[in-house]
């Protein structure tokens, strides 16, 4: 009998937390690797529309981004509520798009200069007029590959 009693005695041992740092480090490294630092802060509302026939974008160094949408709340006082274009960190007019594309193109390596894609990250509420103007400017500087960046999702989400 005493044999069994011996084993029964004693409290539950505390769970060792020695491996907790390892687990946290593992998560940390995952996020460090997966993080893409945003190189420009968004100054416009940017709720992308949804689409499900999407294609993956090229590597990041072959893409230049053009943002457009209504200025965010804290800029509305200064810039109004009309949809605007954002290039890098500044608000810009339609006329600046061409110069921006040429500058971006010149900053890339020679072999990439012909394969650049322009990603249009445009808020869903924007009017098409602004986008057509951007497209006209892009055509003028011969930046013909474009990508309408979207969320993945069903198109019916757009119609509400």
């Amino acid at each position, binding site marked *: 009998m005493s044999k069994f009693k011996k084993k029964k005695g004693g409290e539950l041992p505390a769970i060792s937390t020695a491996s907790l740092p390892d687990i946290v480090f593992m998560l*940390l490294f995952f*996020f460090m690797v*997966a*993080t893409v630092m945003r190189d420009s802060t968004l100054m416009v509302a940017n709720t992308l*529309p949804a689409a499900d026939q999407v294609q*993956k974008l090229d590597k990041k160094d072959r893409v230049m981004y053009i943002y457009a949408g209504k200025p965010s709340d804290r800029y509305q006082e200064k810039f109004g509520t009309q949809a605007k274009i954002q290039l890098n960190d500044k608000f810009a007019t339609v006329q600046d798009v061409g110069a921006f594309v040429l500058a971006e193109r010149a900053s890339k390596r020679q072999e990439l200069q012909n394969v650049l894609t322009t990603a249009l990250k445009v808020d869903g509420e924007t009017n*098409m*007029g602004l986008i*057509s103007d951007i497209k006209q400017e892009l*055509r003028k500087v011969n930046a013909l590959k474009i990508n309408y960046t979207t969320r993945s999702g069903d198109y019916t989400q757009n119609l509400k």
Partner: protein
Amino acid sequence: MAKRSAPEVNAGSMADIAFLLLIFFLVTTTIETDSGLNRKLPPMEDVVDPPVIKQRNIFTVVVNKNNDLLVEEEPMEISELRAAAVAFLDNGGGKGADACDFCQGARDTSSSDNPDKAVISLKNDRETDYKVYIAVQNELVAAYNDLRNREFKRLYPSAGLSFVDADSKYSDPRTSSSEKEALKPKLDAIKKLFPQKLSEAEPSKTN
């Protein structure tokens, strides 16, 4: 002299430090949405002699400023657009040189002759919402993709893929170059059967 062993460094706060870093990266991480609809704009130079396209080979889609859809002069819901576009592209009403031997459509003589000839013309107003425009674009691309998937499955059943899967596999940098070379002629053949002829007119001004 008493031998002193070096005191062990307390590693208890390591977890705290790691948590701090973890939270920093969690907050700064933005999982980038890097996918979308790829389009190609037409070059700027004016075509001197625009090719004449027969009216029956043009599928007109107009989106007005109230985000309503007008397809071939008839109002339509966006949910019906995909089927209408598929019916138009796959019609294959042509005869002789224009005949389409793989089309499964109605072969209506008042609709498109051949997918190779069929053009979808998309026109929008300056006040159309971008998200509606994207929904329309999405449905038109979906119509092309449906047809391309069908033909891909029919011609290359051994691949076990749909056209869309094969295309994304082709553009995936991890795919080996030998696989890419095997895929490329297949993709090109399908793209030749159903070329994406989606023309966009310059938007109309609102009066």
